[in-house]
């Protein structure tokens, strides 16, 4: 009995430590977003803002990059206008993310289904090659993309990001969906076929509704990858999306941690809301195929 209690205590203690480890950075970011810069790094550590302020959040909406400028002799001139560009960047990131998800689900849905249902000469090799492409770091192929988009006149456009993101999200989505389609009983399609349904109708009316958790899980992972992608946006555009804009808040001369924290909170909200909305599908989607 005593051993059992001790074991439970250890488990809970371990869980509590894990939670602190995971959540403390988030807590620190939230805390910082309500502080003035002079309170950051103060010793002893402030667990709660001494004079809580919304100035960092207001700055995001007003585009004021130096909300705490004192205006003294030689007062700080803001070193960046990134704050003013954050809200439009969030809009563009959403647009790019949604477009990448949509194109991924259409292409990867069809490709994943084909991999699952058709065996053709070289299909295994093709599938393995597809998975192997995930091993190539995206940064290694940014130059060919840049040249291609320069010739096509697509530099500094959202379309450039949508096309390039598809290149490294599609293999992941195809793999996830193929795995999911494998778990959908073929007998359902066979029965539908017997009743006269076409292959496409089977896919749309029978398989797709059953595969909804897989499609949502794949879509969410693809969205998160597109949302947080930094380097392609940096190279192919003039900071159209959120990550490079947030990076613009940092430089050697000025490091506005509190404004950066508020900006980070803004950028965290959309993916978190989406993940919360669809969380019940995610586990089911990712666990597909684990139990026969």
């Amino acid at each position, binding site marked *: 009995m005593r051993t059992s209690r001790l074991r439970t205590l250890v488990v809970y203690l371990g869980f509590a430590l894990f939670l602190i480890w995971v959540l403390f950075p988030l807590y620190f970011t939230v805390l910082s977003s309500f502080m003035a*810069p*002079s309170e950051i*790094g*103060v*010793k002893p550590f402030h667990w709660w803002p001494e004079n809580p302020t919304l100035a960092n959040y207001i700055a995001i909406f007003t585009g004021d990059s130096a909300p705490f*400028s*004192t205006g003294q002799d*030689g*007062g*700080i*001139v803001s070193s*960046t*206008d*990134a704050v003013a560009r954050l809200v439009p960047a969030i809009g563009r990131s959403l647009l790019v993310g949604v477009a990448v998800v949509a194109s991924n689900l*259409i*292409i*990867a849905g*069809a*490709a994943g*289904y*084909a991999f699952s*249902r*058709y*065996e*053709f000469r070289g299909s295994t090799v093709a599938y393995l090659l597809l998975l192997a492409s995930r091993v190539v770091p995206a*940064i290694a192929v940014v*130059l*060919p*993309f*840049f*040249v291609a988009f*320069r*010739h096509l006149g697509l*530099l500094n456009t959202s379309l450039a990001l949508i*096309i*390039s993101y*598809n*290149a*490294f999200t*599609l*293999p992941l989505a195809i793999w996830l969906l193929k795995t999911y389609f494998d778990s959908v009983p*073929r007998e359902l*399609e*066979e029965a539908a076929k017997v009743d006269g349904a*076409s*292959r*496409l109708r089977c896919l749309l009316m029978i398989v797709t509704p059953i595969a909804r958790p897989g499609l949502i899980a794949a879509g969410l992972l693809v969205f998160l990858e597109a949302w947080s992608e*930094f380097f392609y946006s*940096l*190279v192919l555009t*003039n*900071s159209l999306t959120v990550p*490079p*804009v947030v*990076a*613009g808040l*940092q*430089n*050697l*001369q000025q490091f506005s941690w509190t404004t950066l924290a508020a900006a980070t909170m803004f950028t965290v909200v959309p993916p978190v809301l989406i993940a919360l909305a669809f969380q019940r599908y995610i586990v089911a989607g990712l666990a597909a195929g684990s139990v026969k």
Partner: protein
Amino acid sequence: MDVRYPTAGSFPISASLSRRNLLRGALAAGLTVPAVPLLTACGDSAAKTNDTPGTLSMTAWEAYPEQIRELLASFKNQGGSPVDLSLIPNVGYGPALQTRLQGGQAIDVFYNFAYASTKYVDAGWAGTLNDFPGAEDLLADMFPASAARHRLADGRIISVPYFSAVHNLMYNESHLKKHGISAPPTTKEEVYEQCRKLKSAGVPSPYAGYWTKQFLEEYLLVYLLADGITPFDDKGAPVFADDPRTQDVMEWWKAMYQDGLTSKDVLTADPGNHVTAMAQGNSTFFELHHYFLQIVRTTEGPESGNVTILYRNPGTAGTTLQIGEVIQIGAKSGGQRAQDAWKLLKFYGWKDDVGKYSTFTSWAKAAALLGPYPGLFKDPDFLAAFPSYYDMPKLENTFANQSDVVPTRVAPWYASFQVKVGDRIQAMLLGQADVKETVDALATDARNLAAAGQ
């Protein structure tokens, strides 16, 4: 409708509209989209030059964008070309710029890190400036020591200044008085002793420095120069390793860290942490670029107003490192376009059309940045723009007589050496490598990298 029953191992039902082909097409699309850029873009030619006058393209990192736009508007008002500005965040600027240039983008004028400037010329991404009218005059207008950043030993002029700065020790005057220290330190031994005293008196982290891996190379040079040690000879050989005083400097450095005279996170903390530590009184000394005094002063903290600057770095020689970044001209600009780009370079990195240092005055006002020109220190507009708590004659003296740009820093291999310094010095500070071993290894690194040319 043609229905076939499934056979083992496959489900080869085909409908009239060949949906198998449709699905195969989708499969093919899934496979080929990732490969498209690879197939389309290999071997893009980058040799053509653009001679057509018109809107110039300029790429800069995202520091003071409003000032940049104002300056470019002013350039246009003075008869210069219109400029299309592209801003890239500091984080990732180098790789992004390199990718764009390598990808054949024509950029007429761009900011660059001084350490990368020679490499860009050698790679054919940036042009030399020797043939442009006034290039020699521009260099002649500089402090002699500063010109070595822009003119290579072989005579090629590769860049003009974007800004310059010197490393100085900032210190809290009030702290020193309060703890019975009558004057700021003049040698590194005094720095150590004063820090010990301050630590015993309760100052948590008396000495602050931006000792992250990326910046340790600057500190290595700062500490060597302060004691009169020549880091590299004219040919770029690491002669610091032959000077026995180098080991003393390194021992001092290691003791500063291991004896707890810095904050525990000094090897990873960003400058913002140190600025706060100075403003809050948690640190008394802060070694970094002179313009950080402005940031400390304008950070609202109880000790911000007590922080001042020591214009002679502690050490037997008192010399310091002069740093600065540069502006280069794109190699694809030719003919009249190149002349227009050169005009922008002169405006941005020297004087405007009416002979005033308007760009540097703008940087002085925004961020207390300097330029490497003695004339700046005689220019009333520039002096008025600079924060009043700087002693400008002393700052000028530091530039003119007590600082060194260390010309080897623009060698093509030097960026790789900087990485090595970061790794090796941090290992030494952490006690994972001894001092002699570190000095020898650094010298070997420098020789090997220089021999390999990378």
